[in-house]
């Protein structure tokens, strides 16, 4: 049987973290009373016009720079027309012809064979990043055969990140999206929490034989977590391979991922190929961005978005933070990945290192094995840890100064988890876990043990 080459391309929508919407002054907030965060423009009341939010532009530029894109100094807005109850205007304002950023790349890492010690770096090309409006929310009430519409989300700013189809499986898709999520959170351009709909991923999947043209692709939607993304992509690849090997064909359709059944199903309500009749947005002039060279002399600085300024203010991206952790503390690259993967863990680690004499290379073991596994077992975040960095540092100091042994330290840690407010020293004294260094005392203990186990001693002496 000839091998199959799966091809996966992702379209990611990230909600911009801003106070107000992309083209209007209504508030951006999750879970507010229905239709309370809606302006006349958002509801498409006649006579209203879009006014572009500066913060959204800056968020898109930051993201474009972080993803190594070329920023288009002149970009344009367009209308994309389709009918749906949660799109009151009958069109979405987007950037189809000339988006704000193009031709970037995203580097991410994968573990080979699930071994963290063997990590490989891969790259996926970013085709473009565009600014566009989010739609409202439809709540389907099948019992009463109606849809309830809440426009709170209508008009919220989105950055659509379009990737080239460079990915080949669920694991790569998950790793790439995870890294993008970390980047967005580091930049602050989006909080990128998938569970709150701030990061939405659609996957385009197809398979073909090496050397042949690409196969028909399907679009997979309704993916609500990074784990489900990997499963949905892998399921769809398998489904297509099986279909084709059984002599069937793949339809160019949109499918939804059913997380309970772990499979993709055709989506109803998709009327064939859509013709969006793109046209320039007549109410918005081109968006012009500046840099140090092109900055006009007398312009109101509130009306200027300066790419060079934004570039200077970019924080350290995750890849840079990891490299710094490895260099500064001598930990392994895979350690730095785990540290950045858990919110607050890198900070916790650095705080412990600051407060203890134990070498970072030893501290990391306590962080990644003992602390992290406990947190995971009890579904706690680092912020919710009953053991603070100070307490852990105190404990590690006792170990470093050889006042206790390593097994004893683990026992103390178990007590610390209870969060009863005792210090490590207090627990050591309470449980008599101190290491004994006095020769005479040790002899007495050994003698007592031997005296108490006469039979065993005889067996040992006899050989």
């Amino acid at each position, binding site marked *: 049987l000839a091998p199959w080459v799966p091809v996966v391309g992702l379209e990611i929508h990230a909600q911009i973290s801003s106070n107000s919407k992309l083209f209007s*002054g209504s*508030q951006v907030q999750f879970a507010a009373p229905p239709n309370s*965060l809606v302006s*006349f*423009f958002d509801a498409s009341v006649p006579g209203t016009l879009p006014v572009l939010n500066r913060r959204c532009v800056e968020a898109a530029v930051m993201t474009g720079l972080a993803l190594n894109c070329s920023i288009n100094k002149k970009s344009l807005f367009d209308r994309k027309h389709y009918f749906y109850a949660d799109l009151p205007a009958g069109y979405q304002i987007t950037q189809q012809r000339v988006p704000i950023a193009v031709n970037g790349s995203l580097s991410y890492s994968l573990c080979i064979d699930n071994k963290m010690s063997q990590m490989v770096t891969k790259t996926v090309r970013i085709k473009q990043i565009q600014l566009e409006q989010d739609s409202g929310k*439809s709540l389907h009430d099948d019992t009463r055969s*109606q849809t309830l519409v809440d426009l709170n989300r209508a008009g919220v700013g989105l950055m659509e990140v379009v990737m080239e189809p460079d990915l080949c499986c669920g694991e790569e898709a998950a790793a790439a999206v995870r890294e993008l999520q970390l980047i967005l959170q580091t930049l602050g351009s989006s909080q990128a929490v998938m569970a709150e709909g701030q990061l939405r991923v659609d996957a385009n999947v197809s398979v073909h034989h090496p050397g042949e043209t690409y196969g028909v692709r399907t679009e997979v939607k309704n993916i609500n977590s990074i784990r489900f993304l990997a499963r949905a992509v892998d399921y769809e690849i398998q489904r297509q391979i099986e279909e084709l090997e059984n002599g069937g064909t793949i339809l160019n359709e949109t499918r939804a991922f059913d997380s309970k059944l772990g499979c993709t199903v055709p989506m109803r309500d998709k*009327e064939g190929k859509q013709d969006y009749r793109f046209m320039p947005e007549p109410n918005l002039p081109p968006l*012009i961005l500046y840099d140090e060279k092109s900055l006009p002399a007398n312009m109101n600085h509130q009306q200027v978005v300066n790419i060079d300024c934004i570039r200077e203010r970019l924080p350290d991206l995750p890849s840079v933070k990891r490299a710094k952790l490895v260099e500064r503390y001598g930990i392994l690259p895979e350690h730095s990945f785990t540290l950045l993967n858990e919110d607050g863990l890198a900070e916790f680690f650095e705080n412990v290192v600051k407060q203890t004499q134990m070498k970072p290379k030893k501290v990391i073991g306590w962080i990644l094995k003992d602390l992290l596994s406990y947190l995971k077992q009890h579904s706690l975040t680092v912020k919710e840890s009953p053991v603070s960095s100070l307490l852990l540092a105190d404990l590690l100091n006792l170990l470093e100064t050889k006042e206790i042994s390593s097994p004893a330290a683990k026992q103390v840690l178990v007590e610390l988890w209870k969060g009863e407010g005792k210090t490590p020293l207090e627990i050591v004294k309470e449980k008599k876990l101190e290491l004994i260094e006095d020769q005479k005392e040790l002899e007495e203990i050994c003698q007592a043990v031997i005296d108490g186990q006469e039979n065993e001693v005889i067996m040992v002496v006899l050989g």
Partner: protein
Amino acid sequence: QTVTVEMLDHLEHLALVDFRDSEGVERLQKAIQFADQLHEVNTDGVEPMDSVLEDRCLYLREDDVTEGNCMKELLKNAREKVEEYFVAPPGNIPLPKLEERDTFLQGF
């Protein structure tokens, strides 16, 4: 005939217009002819203009919350509502296919 029945049917689906009768179709044809006159102009080496606003400055607004909180007023426009939600049919109701519609286009 510059317009085909397929194109007219497609437009009726996309824009929910109703060409209604031959006069409607003729008006469309005349509009296309009118716009086609643009092809008589030599535009070699000229950048297309897609908006008369092209040399205007796109005003940027500060990221402040200045609107919203007018749910009652907005819902006044709703024919049907449930609590504070707008009510819509369960899904898009597509225009029936050409053969199934009572339209003048069938004899076109």
